[in-house]
């Protein structure tokens, strides 16, 4: 798996719980790598071990942990670059939802060999959408759930999110239901197209 995923988990743990917790998790996951590099590749199995060990240490179930990871990626100041790149998706939250279809290809433009879930958006009614999340590894729909929850805050809208397992007869996937309750609930955070990403 691309190091960006492992690196995200490491940053999430270190920024939220501290370096000591991370070192204990790494020892527990029997990983020889302590500090993951975002731009290098690691064995897929290692990512699974790290997630498992992290959930155990933090006494969280896997989906709860991945949801927190998703929120962290959008809200933490160290991850400002991620929030900004997502906000390019649209001027409004609904525009942003429409851009999820393209997210996979957009990310590939910048990091060609990064594998991300395929997302397919469908509008069900005026204010309800579904996002189908298909990926080689199950469970990453929870990351999407956490990210969308945080992005709704970022745009200042009120949403109800619900994740469930689905199957189209070919393969199992995850289905995220998005209900827009209020499109101008709060002022949200500002976003300027030409702004500088954090750390630059």
């Amino acid at each position, binding site marked *: 798996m691309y190091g960006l995923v492992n690196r995200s988990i490491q940053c999430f743990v270190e920024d939220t719980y501290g370096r000591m917790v991370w070192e204990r998790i790494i020892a527990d996951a029997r990983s020889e790598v302590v500090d993951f*590099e*975002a*731009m*290098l590749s690691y064995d897929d199995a290692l990512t699974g071990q790290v997630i498992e060990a992290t959930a155990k240490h933090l006494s969280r179930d896997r989906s709860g942990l991945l949801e927190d990871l998703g929120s962290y990626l959008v809200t933490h100041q160290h991850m400002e*670059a991620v929030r*900004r*790149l997502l906000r*390019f998706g*649209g*001027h409004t939250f609904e*525009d942003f939802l429409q851009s999820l279809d393209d997210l996979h290809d*957009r*990310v590939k*433009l*910048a*990091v060609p060999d990064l594998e991300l879930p395929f997302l397919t958006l469908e509008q069900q009614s005026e204010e309800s959408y579904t996002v189908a999340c298909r990926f080689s590894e199950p469970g990453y729909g929870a990351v999407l759930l956490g990210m969308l929850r945080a992005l709704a805050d970022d745009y200042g809208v009120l949403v109800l999110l619900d994740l469930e397992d689905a199957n189209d007869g070919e393969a199992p996937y995850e289905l995220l239901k998005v209900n827009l309750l209020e499109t101008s609930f709060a002022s949200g955070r500002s*976003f*300027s*197209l*030409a*702004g500088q*990403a954090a*750390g*630059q």
Partner: protein
Amino acid sequence: MTFHEKGQLILSDQVLDALMPLHLRVDSTGIIRHFAPTLRKLCETSDVIGKPLLDVLDIRTSRQITEFAELCDVRSARLKLNFKQGSGYALKGLFVPLPDQGAIVNLSLGISMRDIVRDHGLSAADFAPTDSTVDMLYLIEANTTAWDETKRLTERLQGAKIAAEEQAFSDTLTGLKNRRAMDHFVRRFLDKAVPFGLMNLDLDYFKQVNDTLGHAAGDHVLQKVSEVLISETRDGDVVARVGGDEFVLAFRNCVDPKIIEKIALRIITMLEVPILFEGNICNVSASAGTTLSTHYEKPDLDVMLAHADAALYESKRKGRACHTMFMPDNPLKAY
């Protein structure tokens, strides 16, 4: 939207604004009649409606445009424009004459888009969804982020590489170069055709020191020997410990047998000075053999090492504590 009787499409300014938020319309005399909303945000001149186009914008094709009539005559429809007042960023433009009344000029931000968007606080809503400016800005930012991360990774790897190389290139006991480093640096002499003398040097009686006084005494002797070798050579020379008590020295730009012989004898003499270790006296000496790169038409490191070794064993055979120069015509003749 209605169709004219001649079959021409009539579009309102509102429709054109939605299609092209960066366009303007002039009448047949070049007076600005309409300015689309995003273009208004870029323009620092107030009340542009009613002003001559060339008073507001500086326009070039392959040459400077000074009269509106020239603009209508130019063959190329591609324009380079910038506002006469304000930041002066270059915009790209397309000039399209209208059948009876003036022309439309549609603009795009061109290569300075990032600066223009920042300076004027533009948002995605200021662009038509078909305009790829926002996608371009996304791509610039995504690439910059990925590039910065790659650059940081390269810097970390570079630091780790230097640390690993320093460890891999030096003998931790004596701080001299190790076999790998000797190999590396002597091959550099060969690559650059630098003439050099290559000396193999073995300690004599070192095993006795180790056996009778222990490894700590042996280690101490090796450190003292290293100090002697360093003091008797120059900065550009290579001094390496390539085995337990085996050393290789390469004398850069020195192929005079007499000078090398002198250096060898001086080293041997200095190594024979008794070394004190925790109250015990350690006595060692050294045997050495040297060959010169100038002996060979195409010097080869392995061949040179073998010849230096042959000369070294000749020194051992002669009773140790001496130096032998390898001679190609008479391989084992003592110098």
